């Protein structure tokens, strides 16, 4: 699959602070790739290198195979970029801004006339396009930011924290919008600190902390690779040693602990094995009162990964 974004040992420092540290990133074309990390992880710095606002100190960044270092308008022609909390000239009206940006993309007057109303409708700014941007709320500026990123129907859309400043309804709308633009064939690179947002809309994810990529894969693989063991908590009557021994003989059980009439069974599988466990307990003379499957959410994994990385001083696990 072609790479929309590729970085090799990308490093960016601000004085003594290394914001991005030998980052290797590969975003396949036609995917929605989440770029997940806590505040200050190096997400925005990486993106600013990708869009040409910052020069890397070391390493290479490429967009569709073209190096981005330096002033490269031809590369930017293929990118739609929405900055984190975008700021636009307050003296311009929403329509004027999009019209001027459209001219910068060399869109014809007809293209602009066709595209602008559609975008304004899409981001929910229809009816407010003739107001000065200075009168827009933060949420409206955020929506305008999305509209200008999609102006040229770019091949790659880079969204830096698109939900920031939006109300809950707006956040849902943005997620739907991202899913829809991906269906149009655009590659979406979504930077976010909101795990559920990435989980809901992205097919791939790179988790970054302190400028270092901790993991990068499909959402499913990341969950599968790094989720910790699942535990079954079962309350039974007639809890006997035979029952416990029979449970331990099951191939997917790694440990069984007992406390009064409760069992804590540690599983090493991602499959739903509750029927087999239930059958073993019943055959061993026990009666199940309750059963809970306790697994780690991606959020737990994220927190665990970040914590682990912090413990190891930011080294890759």
């Amino acid at each position, binding site marked *: 699959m072609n790479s929309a974004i590729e970085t090799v040992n990308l490093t960016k420092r*601000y004085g003594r602070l290394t914001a991005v540290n030998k980052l290797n990133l590969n975003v396949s074309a036609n995917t929605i790739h989440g770029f997940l990390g806590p505040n200050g992880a190096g997400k925005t*710095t990486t993106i*600013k290198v990708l*869009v*040409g*606002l*910052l*020069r890397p100190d070391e390493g290479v960044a490429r967009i569709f195979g073209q190096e981005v270092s330096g*002033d490269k*308008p*031809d590369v*930017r*022609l*293929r*990118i739609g*970029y929405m*900055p984190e909390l*975008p*700021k*636009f*000239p*307050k*003296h*311009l009206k929403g329509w*004027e801004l999009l019209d*001027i*940006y459209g*001219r*910068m*993309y*060399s869109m014809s007057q007809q293209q602009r006339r066709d595209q602008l109303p559609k975008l304004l409708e899409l981001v929910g700014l229809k009816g407010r396009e003739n107001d000065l941007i200075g009168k827009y709320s933060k949420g409206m500026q955020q929506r305008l*930011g999305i509209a*200008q990123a999609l102006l*040229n*129907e*770019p*091949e790659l859309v880079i969204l830096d924290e698109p939900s920031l400043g939006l109300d809950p309804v707006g956040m849902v709308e943005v997620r739907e919008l991202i899913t829809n633009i991906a269906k*149009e*064939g*655009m590659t979406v690179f979504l930077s976010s600190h909101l795990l559920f947002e990435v989980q809901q809309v992205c097919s791939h994810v790179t988790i970054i902390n302190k400028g270092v990529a901790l993991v990068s894969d499909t959402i499913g693989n990341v969950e599968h690779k790094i989720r910790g063991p699942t535990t079954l908590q079962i309350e039974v009557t007639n809890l006997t040693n035979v029952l416990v021994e029979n449970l331990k003989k099951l191939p997917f059980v790694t440990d069984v602990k007992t406390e009064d009439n409760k069992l804590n069974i540690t599983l090493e599988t991602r499959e739903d094995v509750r029927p087999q466990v239930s059958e073993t307990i019943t055959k061993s003379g026990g009666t199940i009162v309750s059963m809970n499957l306790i697994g780690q959410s991606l959020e737990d994994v994220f927190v665990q990964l970040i914590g682990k990385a912090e413990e190891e001083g930011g080294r890759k696990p």
Partner: protein
Amino acid sequence: MTKKATRSTLLSSFLAVVRYELLWNIRKKKLYGVITIAFVLVTLTLFLRVILSNIENQPLSANPNFAADTGTGLGTFGFFLFALVVVMNSISGEFESGTIVPLLTKPVSRTTVFLGKIFAAFVTLLAAYTVLLVYLALGSSVIYGPQNNLHLLPIVLFGSIASTFVWMSIILAVGALSKSSMVAALVGIGLWLGLAIVGAVVGAVLGQTWVLAYFPGSGAAGYAPNINSTPLPINVTIPAGLQVSTGTDGIATNLVTYILHPSAEVNFYKMEFMIGSRGGPTYTFLNTETLSSIITRESITIAAYILVFSFIAWLALKRAQVAE
């Protein structure tokens, strides 16, 4: 499917930046403030002789060359004010407000952004100065009778823009380097005030007129003895002839004078104040220089300032990293 990326043409990008910048310029409240000040300055220039004639009880004489001799009527202060207002936040303001981020991530080279901003400043000045010159020409005709040499006003227009561009390029460079409109404004004001004060001392009192020719501003004052000028109707002792400024702000009126008097020569004097004596200062002759050589040097100095400081501003924008 996404639209295939088409090459962004240089002209459409450039015109888009010009449009972006012009819309900003014409919506700046500061610009309208300066235009108001400019109208006041031009009106004062128009009516100064009327007021003084009334005070001195002298009849107001007709002057068919008033409009052509006066320039824009703005003087060095007006040029500086226009420069300050038009470009003090042209680049630095984009960094301060964060609007530089969406601008520089569009498929427009930073050089095009820079040139678009410069051209928009030129168009803004062209419009403002044209209006002022038309006002001055009409006012001159009404107050001082029919005017000659009005065809030379376009030279006044472009000469005044060149003078303003000297200040503009300095302010733009400071703004682009510091990324602060406040620093750009303060450095600009400091430089203008400093040169105005120091220049007066160095040129008139110390007699070092040649130094001032290489600094922006009004420069040293000389007098072309063979050109008649209508003296102000007040009792002041000044050398005879038309006053000529050697600094970068004087190019517009000097060009007009040169076209009307190609062989004009300019005398320079040292001004001396006698402590305890009554009356004005006395003038000691220093040297004579042809007007053509003054204009040549002025033109080279103006070009050098504009090119050097514009280059610095361009380089600062070209190399700028946007971390915040």
